Structures are given as C-alpha cells and as structure tokens.
C-alpha cells in the first residue's frame, strides 16, 4: 500500500504535486542558466577564432559523438516509458525501464571515458597542458579547454542523474509509486530529459562543426 505522502500544509496531493513540479522546473531553469554561461563563452570565442574552432572540431570523433547522442535519446525514451508504466501500476515493467535508462547512462559515460582517453593519448589536454596537434593556435587550445569543461560538467550531471535513477528504481521496487502518487518519478524524469537536452546542443557545437 503506497504510504500517504500528503504533507500537512498542502490541501491535497494535486497541489503538492504541482508545487513540487514548479520547484523542479525552477531548478532546471537555474541549471539552464548555469550552462548558458558556458555557451556564451563558446559563442564569443568561436566568433573570435572561427577557423581555429573549425580545425579543432576536425580532431573530435564524430561517430562516437553521434552514438552518444542516440544513446541518450533512447535513454530519455525509456525514462518516459518508466513513468507511463508506473502510472498504470505496472511497477515491474517500470523498474525494467529504469534499469535500461541506468544501463544506457553507463554506456554513455563509458563512451565518453574512451573518447577522453583517445584525446589524452593524442596529447589533447585542457588549457596550459595542451600538447596536441595545432597547439600553437590559441583558438584550438580554447576549443578543447571549453570542450573538456562543458562535456565534463555535463558528464557530472549525467552521474548525478544515474544516482537519481538508482534511487527512483529502489523506491519503485518498494512500491512507493502508483496511479495516485508518482511525482518523484516524474521529477527524476524531468532532470534526465534536461541532461539529454544539454547534450543535444553540445553535440553540434563540438562534433558537427565542419
């Protein structure tokens, strides 16, 4: 029996759900602003070093980037699927969907790790430690510094998302979510989709720039 989650000072569950959802969207708004600072830096430096950025983009691994984008999109689908099935009281299927999302997140981080090691092997390090090709061109060094900072911060958020999905899976197994109350699962989904959206913009900026 799902324990009652009705907090004292809200009249009913619906209002409480709406409050939690509004709180989550405000949090996602602040996260969007956090990444907007980095997108601003990217836009400003790309404006100053256009050709260097194009040269830098040649050095990134496009196939790997595309696979990662597809992986995240599919994981977003399973997250939404998990929420839908939880609301239809099919919690066993919901747990399976959450597990798939978790797995795809791990795959994404794995691909990202391999990509980083390939770059390190070529001597492409951030900032002053850059010893890779075209090292003398400031734009290329800045391109990769921003690459590491933006994809690194995004990877941190993916790790946070995985912890969240794990916690949600445990609560689903405990039977907390059902037709009446599934807001935490929805909020977890919102966060995961947000992390996916950020990657949707990172992918063209760093990989597609031909």
């Amino acid at each position, binding site marked *: 029996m799902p324990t009652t989650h009705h907090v004292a000072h809200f009249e009913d569950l619906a209002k409480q759900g709406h409050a939690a959802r509004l709180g989550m969207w405000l949090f996602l708004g602040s996260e969007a602003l956090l990444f907007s*600072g980095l997108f601003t*830096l990217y836009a400003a430096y790309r404006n100053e070093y256009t050709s260097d950025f194009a040269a830098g983009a040649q050095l990134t691994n496009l196939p790997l980037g595309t696979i990662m984008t597809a992986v995240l999109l599919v994981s977003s689908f399973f997250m939404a699927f998990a929420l839908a099935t939880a609301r239809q009281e099919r919690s066993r299927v919901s747990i399976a969907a959450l597990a798939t999302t978790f797995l795809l997140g791990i795959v994404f981080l794995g691909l990202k790790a391999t990509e980083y090691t390939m770059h390190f092997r070529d001597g492409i390090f951030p900032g*002053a430690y850059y010893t890779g090709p075209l090292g003398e061109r400031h734009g290329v060094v800045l391109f990769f*510094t921003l690459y590491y900072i933006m994809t690194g911060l995004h990877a941190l958020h993916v790790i946070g998302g995985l912890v969240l999905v794990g916690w949600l899976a445990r609560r689903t197994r405990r039977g907390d979510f059902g037709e009446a109350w599934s807001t935490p699962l929805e909020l977890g989904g919102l966060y995961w989709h947000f992390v996916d959206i950020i990657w949707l913009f990172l992918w063209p900026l760093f990989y597609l720039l031909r």
Partner: protein
Amino acid sequence: MTTTASPRPPAPAHVETKNYLNAETTFRSWATTTDHKRIGVLFLAGVTLSAMLGGTFALLLRLELLTPEADVMTAMTYNRLFTLHGVVMVWLFMIPAIPGAFGNFMVPLMIGARDVAFPRLNLASFYFYLSGALLVIAGAIAGGADTGWTFYPPYSAQTPTALVPVLAGVFVLGISSTMTGLNFIVTIHTLRTAGMTWWRLPLFVWAIYATSIILVLATPVLGLSLLLVAIDHAFALGVFNPAHGGDPILYQHLFWFYSHPAVYIMILPAMGVISEVVPAFSRKNVFSYRGIVIASVGIALVGFLTWGHHMFTSGMSAFDSGAFGVLSMFVAIFSAIKVFTWVGTLYRGRITLSTPLLYFFGFLFLFAFGGMTGVALASTSLDVHWHDTYFIVAHFHFIMVGGTMMGFMAGLHFWFPKMFGRLYSQRLSAVVALLAISGFILTFTPQFLLGNAGMPRRYHTYPAEYQPLNIISTIGSWAIGAGLLIGLLYLLVALWRGKPAGSNPWNLLGLEWSISSPPPPHNFEEPPKVWQEPYDYWRARND
C-alpha cells in the same frame, strides 16, 4: 483582512501562551527546525553577526585612509581587507539579510500559509549559508583573497593569496540563495490562502517574489564564473588567460550578468519593507499599488539586461556601451515610479512618526540620491571620469547602506514586536536612527567629491591633496559604527526586558498582525479568509 471574527483580545501578559519560541527550547529543536519562523530568526542572527564582521573591516579600512601614507597596515593587508569587506557584506549580509530573515518569517504569515512550500529545503538553505560563511571565514584566516569582491582575472589567476576557499564559500552561499529563491516562488504560487489573489498580495510579498526570480535565475552564472576563476587559479586552464588567447573581458560579462541583478536582489526586499512601512504609518492605501507591483517585477526582469554599464571603460565595444546605457536608463524608471508612489502615499494620510518611518525618510533621500547618481553614471561619458573612483564607491554605498541597510533597520524595528513579542524604547531608537543617517551622510558625501577629484578606488596610499575629505569620511564612519552598535544593544536588551507587545502593537491591517506575537508554532488554527485589498484603511474604523 483579518479573520472574519474581530481579533481576540490579547491574552494577559503573565500567562505564557505557547508560541514558536517557547514551544520547545532544546538545541536540537533549533538545529533541526523546519519552522519558517525559527529559520528566519537563525538567519537574522547569522546576518547580524556578518554585518558586524563586515562593519569592523570597513572601520579598519577607513582608519587606514586617514593619512595618505601607509601607517596602520601594508598594501597586501589593505587589499585583503577591502576584498573581505566586499565579500562578507555582499554575500553574507546584503543578499541573505531581508529575504532570509524577514522573508522567511513574514511571507508565510502574510499570505496565510502554515509554512513555506519545502520546509526541509529551507533548513538546508540555512545550513548552506552557515557552511558558506565558515568557508569564507576560513579563507580569510588562511590569508584571504586580495582581488576585490569582483575576482577579475588575470590578476585573480595569479594572486598568491588563498583565493580558492573564498571562492568555494561564495559558491556555497550561491546555492543557499538559489534554494531560498526557489522556495519563495513556489510558496507564493501555491500556498496563498483563500481569497488572497495576486492583486491582494502585500507589497513585501511581491518584492520577495521579484527578488526570488533573480535569486533563482542569476545565481548560477555567478557559480559558473567563480568555478572558472578557481580552475584558472588552481590548474591554469586559461579560459580567461590572455597568454592562451583568452579574453578577460568575457569574465566581466559573466560576472556582471550576475552581479548587477545581485544589486537588485539587495535593494528590492528593502523596497518591499518600505512599501509596508509607508502605508502602515500613514494609515492609507498605497498611492499606486499596481505601479509598485509592475515596478518590482520590471526591475527583476529588465535588471538582467543592464550589466554592461560596469564595463564602459573596460575595452568593451562602443556599440555595446550604447546599448547598455539605454537599457540602464530604462530600468531607472522603475525606481523613480517607486519613489513617486511612496511620497504619494503620504498624501492625505494620518502620519504617525515612529522609528521605521524615520528609517523610511533616511531611505527615501539616500536611495533617491543613489539612484539619480546612477542615472548620471549611465550617461556614458560621465562614467569615463567616474569609473573605478570613489564616486562609484559613494554611489553604491548610497544604495546599499542608504537603501538596503536602512530598509533592514526599518524592517527590524517594524517587525521586532511581532517576531519576539517585545517592544523596544521608541526614543532611543529614534536617536540612533538620526545618528546612523547623519553619520552616513558625513561618511559618503565626501566620497562623491573625492570621486569627482579623481581619487581611484581600492587605493592604499593616495596623493596628499585628497586627505581632508578622507578625514571627514573616516569620522562619519565612526558615527555609523557607533549608531548601529547602540541599535544592536537596545534591541538585545528589549529581547528580555522589553514590555510585552500585543498581537497588533501598531493596530495595523494584515494577516500577520491578526495572530499573537510571537506567533504560535503553526501560525493559523484554520486558514484565514481574505476578502479585500491590502492596506484598506479607508474601509476600516480606525484612528
């Protein structure tokens, strides 16, 4: 706007009714409280201590500036002191003061709610504030930064001082502000009592709502710029390092994108307090309620577009200087709306002179001068001479100390009886108010003239011809210090030995005045019903 029944006669003083203060008094009950009133009192204590700490730094700085040469401290210590004065005053006092202390306490009472939307998040926000403060103080002890509270690279990347703990402290304080802002927006959206529509919200609640929009949406960009400076400082990643082709002016864009809305975070709550004090003590409806609401939200949104006026002489392009100049003029209009409306509210009212109203008069003139010099600064050519001189120091102190500090003191003296159930001595508080205001004028008016004469900011030693004005300014700073200290003393004394204040010491309208003071643990037994606009004195039988 009170509960349908006329307010119960206040309980006789000697019977100790159960309220949020004496409900449970163990340390654990305070440390793990989720009661918005207690968290408000905890913020009030933290904020007052920070103000005293920042104030002592200010007095030391003014002491050093008595003479043109270096006598009390070396240049490095001086740079560290004004950096810490900036960091402590901005992030430990100005930003959390009114939203944290009075917002937490008053907003749920004013909208008829039993608590904020996320009580546990509220407590987490206080603990982030506490750990951020400890980190900043640890950074100060470990040698503290000497880059100014703006942390401009490339100097912030090269400085030998312990910059990273201070940056970490401010980052954590930023998280605390975001949490508080998020909590308030959701509370005001979802927990208003029956009948409390958007156009019946008290103006203090509107001000806190507008501030929270900035708190939530601007603070992350600060977190990011501090993160980048910390990485530059620690690992020479060189995002802003000119040696690697970086552009330090981009940091200034990111920093001021947060920091200009941050000055609106500081002034909007003070405006909210003033918008409560003026109708209360002139017993009249606000001259233009819609005007102040539109101005509050207008400042919050347009305030995001004006950050470039901090960078007119920094190498930014002429086109952007022009764009930011016009946008800054646009945002000045909203402040003018408010000043005009406050003065209009006095018209045909029944004004009783009390300490909060004295602080309002101080606020009115000091904020008016601060604002108008802001308009002069935004006409770009004058800023070329004034930028980074003492004119700027005087301008923002007129708005920060003249505005936010006066607003904080007005709020403190207005809600002290409600928060602690005690009255303070009116005569002594009036004297302190006058002392603080005159001390302020004595301190910062000479700095306007110093700025005109061309004395740059953050100068440890200065050319001799600036000395007379600096001496006057230092004497003024002693007056402010003394005034605020005495203020703190008589309020502390009033905490224990003040006469008990009834539930409505000034006989005002408002949900917060309809319950006992100090309020009961769960505010309202049954949710109150609101049926008319705020400050509706013309429909109340009063005198």
